[in-house]
């Protein structure tokens, strides 16, 4: 059993995982290896902390088709654990790799630590209600959501071995017509500051209140599931929650959000949570750092004003 492996088709996610990987590898005196399917990313991964980078060269641009290659490499190298970026493509590949290796797979681990010699992971269960802690046994696959760890400090020109391997890809499917989703607002998952709208907002025209506050704060606008999926006041990409976006802003400010457990599961990594709601007993206040109990139609305009001329 040797080495800690890291893979993601998204090099940023891969580098973020190297931050955790480096720490883990050092504690376990193991080599930190990264796997990539893009040769041009190899040196970046070394600079970000990887001791060895395997570049899988196959004639396909479709990341999911590299599952057999990743699995074969892991079977040969027998790493202690394989951390894969939990993008949707990453989860698809991770499940295939775990099946081939007949190994366990922990999905969306938000914490990884060493506990008396074993690697332990924490993940969410029952729609955000509970946290499940597992101890990895044998070579195990773990997927890590983007931005769980910060980008590492890179040392340009860091020494590290880069190995290129020619691999066969799984080409049983024709993949075509790849077109980017035209995103209307900015990507709220990476927004620094967020204003979130909930059912406490009476009608769509009142969205202007949120827009003014967001403009004053320099924040993006997100919402709860029903605002997007049932009322269609905002696109589906902007609803925050377990089955929606998971956000990690410095400031999350909610107006008229009651705070169901599935929504709170999407905001729990925010640095500061502020809630404005008329119901003093709304669950959101239990999840908030700061809050105001009051009518958002009075509070929000005043807050916008206060921020504008602070």
């Amino acid at each position, binding site marked *: 059993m040797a080495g800690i492996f890291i893979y993601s088709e998204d090099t940023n996610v891969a580098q973020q995982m190297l931050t955790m990987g480096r720490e883990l590898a050092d504690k376990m005196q193991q080599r930190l290896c990264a796997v990539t399917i893009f040769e041009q990313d190899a040196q970046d991964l070394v600079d970000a902390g990887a001791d060895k980078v395997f570049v899988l060269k196959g004639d396909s641009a479709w990341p999911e088709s590299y599952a057999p290659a990743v699995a074969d490499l892991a079977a040969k190298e027998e790493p202690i654990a394989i951390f894969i970026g939990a993008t949707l493509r990453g989860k698809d590949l991770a499940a295939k790799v775990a099946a081939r290796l007949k190994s366990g797979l922990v999905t969306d681990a938000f914490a990884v630590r060493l506990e008396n010699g074993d690697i332990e992971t924490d993940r969410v269960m029952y729609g955000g209600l509970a946290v499940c802690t597992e101890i990895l046994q044998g070579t195990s696959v773990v997927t890590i959501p983007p931005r769980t760890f910060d980008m590492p400090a890179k040392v340009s020109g860091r020494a590290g071995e880069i190995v290129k391997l020619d691999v066969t890809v799984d080409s049983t499917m024709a993949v075509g017509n790849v077109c980017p989703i035209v995103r209307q607002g900015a990507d709220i998952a990476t927004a620094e500051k967020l204003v979130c709208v909930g059912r406490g907002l009476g009608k769509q025209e009142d969205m202007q209140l949120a827009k003014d506050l967001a403009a004053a704060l320099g924040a993006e606008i997100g919402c709860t599931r029903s605002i997007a999926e049932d009322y269609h006041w905002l696109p589906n990409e902007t609803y925050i929650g377990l089955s929606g976006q998971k956000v990690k802003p410095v400031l999350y400010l909610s107006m008229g959000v009651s705070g169901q457990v599935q929504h709170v599961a999407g905001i729990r990594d925010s640095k500061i949570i502020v809630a404005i709601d008329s*119901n003093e*007993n709304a669950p959101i206040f239990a999840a908030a750092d700061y809050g105001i109990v009051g009518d958002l139609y009075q509070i929000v305009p005043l807050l916008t004003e206060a921020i504008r001329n602070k």
Partner: protein
Amino acid sequence: MTVKKQGAEELLGVNKFSVDEEEPHIVIDKSICAKCKDKPCLVICPAVLYTLKDGEINFDYAGCLECGTCRVMCTNKGIVKWTYPRGTFGVAFRYG
């Protein structure tokens, strides 16, 4: 949360609901309600779903306990539709 005076919304939060997003089972006509003098619904709804917001009756069917008191007491027929929610929707009591 140990026993204390609790708002209706917090109490309803303890129950289990499956909200029918497509078809509200109770619908009111605010123009009729505006002419209603005594507005009994404000007092007799156990879930306090009828509230007065700047002079206008405001109603949200999502927390309904399906008792029917509002229908019985709404003599001015501001409630233009009162049916049970569609099958499998609405409140699901765990104790009862």
